[in-house]
């Protein structure tokens, strides 16, 4: 790797030296912008390659500081973008044309870029100007609500929490995410990017667009381009400072001590068991612990960013730094991230060198314990100075929890306070690419990329005592620390030929060969028994319990080719072929070939088409192709000898080591394949001010790599991977943009919506059961043919028995008055397993986003709404709050059924729960639909006139940003976007299960942007 870092250092050095020699020769340019009807208000004027610029005022006028080398970019929704070199002009008269429409923007695609009118695939692009506007910690999250067909699920509201990205529905059962291509580097995530560094994001949604990435593209491709300097001979400095506060949007109405005691006593009475002293004779009115209130707080966010950019014809550069610090709305959770990015380009004649290097450091201190099951009861004291650590989870000075009548009681907050947790990561994402134009139109490019990361995951649990139960004490201090290193290198050769023949034929040929090698190495340690709680390194431990470690290496060799052909700009053809060979598969199954073909027809360019009619432009697209996924672990097909069996033998019972084979192997696995058919239409209306894109797609994924259970009588205890299932996603996507001005102010609107139908079409094994939401073993989802992935499955509650006789009539010997009546779905007069049914899907069938920009004089406002519908969320707080025998109740459990309150929807309070009321049922499911104002930003820019006198400052903008100002939802948990953090992990079969979700905050921020 040495050569890469040396190259990087050289580039940084060179960039800095070059940058120092630049001189700014600023001059003031004024002008007006109009169209055939008169002045245009709110036209965006940017200096090309920078993010500094201005907008036209009420009279269509503008003033901007620029250098002669600058190119001004005039853009306005519904109008063709104009680029005007400044030269020696001081006064500009610009006329914008509605005829040249939006379709001609340049779109980044795999290994290149294309005019939008030449595209044959389904590609959505969003500009960095839009994404960088909102101060969010996670770049992935900034895509939310922006793009039709792209679902972004926040992984809860924790600081630094990632997001799950699903493009056109899940076509996999392995939780695979899209492929990210960041400045040509193929990687697994864009979480660590600085959102302000993004120039544009392109999402390749159909096979025609993504097939060039072959085996990596089955879950879609997200191409991110970062900001480069502008070759205008100038130097631009931009700073963005923001700070804000955040707090949880919603709280859960848990019972207080009095309510808890009432509910629990009633349950004991109903069961004929003794009341617990702490709830009855020994009830202590001075204790009322509200763990939720103790745990939540107002968090803070600070963000500082600085960018220097500039360049000349020979080279450009952009250097940026960003630091973000966030304390979460739950105590003992915080996150910070530092980014540095250096991008530069060097051009001389036919030779061009580009580099892009991003460095990231994150420190994450998560609170894993908030809202855990069986947390401290309101009747139990939170502190006890006599206990080790100073905290408690019982009111009994002896530490017993018997007076509370429970055998488990945590103290989630004290545990988080006493325990030390930090995950520190350093990452480097770098690319150096050199290209040479051998003859006109024929370019060879060599690109080398490095994706490297080091993570230290550290957790130290000191000894403490909250109570005498197993979950309330730590008898020995334990250190759990893991260091891991990951490196991925890609060397890529491409040859590109672009030629226009006889005026009407345009052809673009691409051929390439790439080689990617990934390696990883992990060393962990579990150490116990430390001389003191304050010494927290493994070497001092008396007991080095285990050192889980592993190493892996995998490789992928690929060659690919693509033909783009356009006849007379009217008829378009794209054909792609990629061959991949992966080390993850057996030699004879290693290679996969992925073809795609697409055609397009620019109807609007036909002579018969009347562009001045109702429709101003029209294009039709059709594509078909196959893409793959090799989403399985390294060495999945290798048999292994388990070295860790043990049995204690001898009079002193020494553990003896035993070996055995525990892993069953299916070495016949190969690529999973996704076949996508896409029909698309793009059109513009209303003098091209309204542009509309529509796509219908059918995405069939076959041979899905999935871990399936195997007969256990083989003695194997793993779930080997098989190419087994098939999934179909069908959907419709709609996107529209509209811009218009009325009187004083003008505005633009963008809308997108997605309809999705996800269905498992083949699964040769038993249904896959998942979605566990309590330690009591109940599980909530099933994946089975004919249903969406991970659908909720269980009983339907049909009401509450009003009398014992009513229960007896249903043959329910276990139930009586006040118990749930479950629907006898198969009508056999008995309540059996066969009465379970599908209760809803965690996957929204409908998603939509709406963004609006308003400009009024020096003010601007941006609103981003989004929403989902058609999905269900399992709210585990309902399970816990009415049924768990050891945790706190919801305050509403007071309103449970009693003979006097026979109209209640909540079954009678009981601990024994003879009728098994708490079985998985639709009682726990709530609508996951929501509509929210995701972001609201109001900004004020000092008018350019005011800044004229100051040579140094070219831009001052102040803004206020509110995230999640309002959310309309019926969901009663913390937030209808729970992420995937239930006890089953981030597994796709746990989607929509809200067990201990970190509350999504509402964030208020104030920011200042400066340009120099």
């Amino acid at each position, binding site marked *: 790797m040495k050569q890469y870092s040396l190259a990087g250092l050289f580039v940084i050095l060179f960039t800095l030296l070059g940058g120092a020699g630049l001189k700014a020769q600023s001059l003031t340019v004024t002008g007006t912008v109009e169209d055939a009807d008169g002045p245009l208000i709110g036209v965006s004027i940017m200096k090309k390659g920078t993010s500094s610029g201005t907008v036209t005022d009420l009279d269509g006028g503008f003033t901007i500081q620029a250098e002669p080398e600058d190119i001004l970019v005039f853009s306005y929704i519904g109008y063709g973008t104009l680029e005007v070199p400044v030269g020696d002009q001081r006064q500009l008269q610009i006329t914008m044309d509605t005829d040249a429409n939006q379709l001609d923007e340049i779109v980044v695609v795999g290994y290149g870029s294309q005019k939008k009118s030449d595209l044959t695939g389904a590609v959505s692009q969003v500009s960095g100007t839009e994404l960088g506007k909102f101060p969010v910690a996670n770049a992935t999250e900034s895509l939310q609500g922006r793009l039709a067909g792209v679902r972004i699920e926040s992984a809860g509201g924790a600081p630094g929490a990632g997001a799950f990205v699903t493009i056109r529905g899940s076509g996999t059962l392995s939780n695979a995410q899209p492929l990210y291509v960041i400045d040509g580097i193929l990687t697994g995530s864009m979480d660590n990017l600085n959102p302000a560094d993004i120039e544009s994001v392109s999402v390749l949604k159909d096979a025609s667009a993504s097939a060039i990435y072959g085996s990596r593209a089955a879950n879609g491709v997200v191409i991110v381009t970062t900001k480069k300097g502008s070759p205008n001979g100038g130097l631009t400095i931009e700073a963005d400072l923001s700070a804000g506060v955040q707090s949880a949007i919603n709280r859960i109405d848990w019972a207080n001590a009095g309510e808890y005691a009432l509910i629990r006593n009633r349950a004991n009475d109903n069961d004929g068991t*003794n009341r617990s002293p702490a709830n009855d004779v020994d009830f202590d009115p001075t204790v009322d612990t509200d763990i939720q209130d103790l745990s939540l707080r107002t968090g803070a966010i600070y963000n500082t960013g600085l960018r220097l950019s500039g360049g000349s014809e020979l080279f450009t550069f952009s250097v940026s730094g960003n630091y973000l610090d966030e304390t979460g709305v739950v105590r003992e959770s915080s996150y910070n991230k530092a980014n540095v990015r250096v991008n530069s380009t060097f051009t001389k004649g036919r030779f061009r060198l580009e580099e892009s290097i991003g460095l990231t450091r994150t420190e994450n201190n998560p609170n894993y314990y908030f809202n855990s099951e069986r947390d401290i009861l309101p009747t139990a004291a939170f502190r006890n100075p006599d206990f080790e650590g100073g905290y408690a989870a019982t009111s009994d000075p002896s530490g017993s929890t*018997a007076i509370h009548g*429970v*055998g488990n009681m945590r103290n989630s907050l004290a545990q988080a306070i006493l325990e030390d947790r930090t995950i520190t990561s350093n990452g480097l994402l770098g690319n150096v690419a050199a290209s040479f134009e051998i003859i006109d139109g024929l370019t*060879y490019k*060599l690109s080398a990329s490095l994706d490297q990361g080091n993570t230290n995951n550290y957790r130290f649990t000191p000894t403490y005592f909250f109570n*005498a*139960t*197993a979950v309330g004490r730590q008898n020995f201090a334990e250190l759990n620390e893991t260091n891991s290193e990951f490196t991925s290198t890609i*060397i890529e*050769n*491409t*040859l590109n030929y672009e030629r226009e023949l006889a005026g009407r034929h345009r052809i673009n040929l691409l051929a390439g*060969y790439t*080689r990617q*090698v990934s390696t990883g190495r992990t060393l962990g340690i579990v150490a116990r028994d430390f001389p003191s709680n304050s010494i927290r390194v493994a070497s001092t431990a008396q*007991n080095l*319990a*285990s050192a889980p470690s592993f*190493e*892996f290496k995998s490789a992928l*060799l690929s060659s690919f080719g693509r033909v783009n052909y356009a006849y007379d700009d009217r008829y378009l053809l794209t054909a792609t072929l990629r061959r991949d*060979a992966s080390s993850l598969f057996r*030699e004879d199954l290693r290679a996969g070939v992925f073809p795609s073909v697409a055609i397009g027809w620019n109807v609007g360019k036909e002579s018969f088409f009347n562009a001045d009619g109702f429709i101003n432009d029209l294009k039709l697209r059709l594509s078909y192709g196959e893409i793959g996924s090799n989403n399985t672990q390294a*060495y999945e097909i290798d*048999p*292994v000898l*388990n*070295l*860790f*069996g*043990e*049995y*204690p*033998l*001898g*009079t002193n019972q*020494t553990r*003896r080591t*035993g*070996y*055995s*084979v525990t892993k*069953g192997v299916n070495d016949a696995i190969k690529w999973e394949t996704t076949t996508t058919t896409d029909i698309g239409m793009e059109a513009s209306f209303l003098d091209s001010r309204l542009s509309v894109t529509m796509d219908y797609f059918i995405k069939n994924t076959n041979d899905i790599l999935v871990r399936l259970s*195997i*007969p*256990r*009588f*083989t*003695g*194997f205890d793993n779930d080997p991977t098989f190419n087994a299932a098939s999934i179909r996603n069908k959907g419709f996507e709609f996107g529209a943009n509209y811009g218009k001005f009325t009187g004083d102010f003008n505005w633009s609107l963008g809308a997108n919506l997605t309809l999705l139908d996800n269905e498992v079409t083949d699964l040769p*094994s*038993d249904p896959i059961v998942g979605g566990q939401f309590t330690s009591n*073993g109940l599980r909530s989802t099933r994946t089975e043919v004919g249903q969406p992935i991970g659908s909720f499955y269980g009983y339907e509650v049909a009401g509450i028995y009003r009398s014992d006789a009513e229960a007896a009539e249903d043959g329910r010997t276990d139930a009586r008055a006040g118990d749930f009546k479950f629907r006898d779905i198969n009508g056999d007069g008995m309540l059996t*397993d066969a009465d379970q049914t599908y209760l809803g899907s965690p996957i929204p069938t409908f998603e939509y986003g709406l963004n609006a920009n308003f400009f009024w004089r020096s003010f601007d406002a941006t609103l981003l709404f989004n929403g989902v519908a058609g999905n269900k969320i399992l709210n585990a707080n309902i399970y816990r709050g009415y049924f768990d*025998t*050891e945790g706190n109740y919801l305050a509403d459990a007071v309103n449970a059924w009693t003979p006097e309150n026979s109209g209640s929807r909540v079954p009678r309070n009981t601990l024994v729960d*003879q*009728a*098994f009321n708490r079985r998985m049922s639709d009682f726990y499911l709530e609508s996951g639909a929501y509509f929210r104002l995701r972001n609201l930003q109001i900004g004020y820019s000092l008018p350019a006139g005011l800044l004229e006198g100051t040579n140094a400052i070219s831009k001052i903008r102040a803004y206020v940003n509110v995230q999640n100002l309002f959310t309309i939802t019926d969901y009663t948990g913390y937030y209808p976007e729970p992420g995937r953090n239930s006890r089953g992990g981030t597994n796709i079969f746990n989607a929509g299960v809200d067990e201990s979700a970190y509350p999504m905050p509402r964030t208020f921020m104030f920011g200042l942007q400066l340009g120099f």
Partner: protein
Amino acid sequence: MHSTIKQLSRLCIAATATLGLVLLPSCDEDILNQTNPSAITPNSFYQTADDAVKAIIGAYSPFTDIWYYTRMNIFATDYRDDLVNGFGTSERTDPGRFAAESNKNMVAWTWAPAWKIISRANAILAYVPNIEMDAEEKAAILAEARFLRAYNYFLLVQTYRNLPLVTEPIDLEEARTVSQVDPQQIYDLIIADLKAAQTALPAQWPADQTGRATSGAATGYLARVYMSQLDYVNARPELLRAMNSGQYELMADYADNFEEASENNKESLFEIQLVSDGNSGWGGDAPGAGKGAGYMQDIAPPPAFTGQDGMRINQWALDLFLDERTVDGHVDPRAFTTLFFDSDETTPYQGRELGPTIYGGQTYDEVFPGSDFVFNKKYLDLEAGYTTASQGWHFSGNNFRVLRYADILLLFAEAEFQLNGSTPEALAAINQVRARANMPAFTIITMQDIMDERVKELSMERTRYQDLLRWGLVEELIVNRPGVKSESGGTGAYRPGREYFDIPDSELNNNPNFKHNPGYE
């Protein structure tokens, strides 16, 4: 050689980087051949005597898996009998309320570890014969493998009834085509294995090997298997063989069978070896994981002494104990060792005063004021000084005694009684057990006496459900007896055939030849 390849591939990288497309893509295809650097492949195993020992230890390892004796086994055994009334409806009480359907966790959990041992035993029987090693040691290891295979097949056939017969290593393809066989074929294999083990296993292992199966264990198990078939003719001589071996006798103190301090004692024929050393995992095939008695959470009285739902003991069992008195007029000392109940009495026994006390000397009235529920006390290991749930999951290293001499004596009394009636031999055997508990000797016995004695002597030792099964009393004593499972919703789920579990979904769905058990179709 290796470095040459490395150099070549380095050359490849350099060449690819400089020449790019001109170079053939096949140049460094070698990089695609990756083998796991973190693991050993099984191919190099079963070569040496040490490998054979490691393999047999590996076969014992699943005994301490959470799915087996460190926890779940109790839910497939005692939690199903007529004494235990488990609290709550959960995966743990599903089998007890006859809801052991194919999709239930417990059905899958208790199936897998027994098969792990069988598959490891099969591998030993297939590969160890080819190892060049000391013949005696080899024969012992092979016999041990047969014992372990028989032991686990017996548990499986008694729980699931209709099994595939697998006696050799099997791969995933074959596993999908095997069929279930008549249970008699399984019993035939068990008996053949135990007979072979009986002759080839040592009577005793060296002190540093204590815990491995002995010939006595094989003999005792063979008798138990015959008894499960009501085959008294074949059972009786095996029981006699154990009794006449001179290796076993009753401990003077009944409680010694349930305390960590007196493990692997002279009354014991086979024990699951458990050790508590602070590791808190769940046994099985992971390094440094728990090997202690995690099941204690499920037998300690709730909620005071366990964080789990736990269970209570049905009143009839206490009544049975209290029906008779010791020779000096006290409560049966086994009652105070087995049960925790409200009583004003105490029994002097072996120099101690037994009474209604539990951990820390707390009395019943202190722990459960005003209650009259009966709870379990056996195996709680009070003498070891442990205090209940407070110590975590594997706080007790108390071995679980799977087969002890008192059981042999009572089985002999039963076999003798069934064959010859209330003979002096039968009386001698049962009275030997009673005498240890200061209970008066019988002068004549009935089958009911033997059945009752087994409750008093062996409750909570995972034999009661097996007893009911062989006597054909499951329906009468559990299903049709109101209140036996009242704390977990009753026995309404019972259908004929549900004395056994269903076959787990993992087997039914991955092998078209497998069928549900009767009562679950």
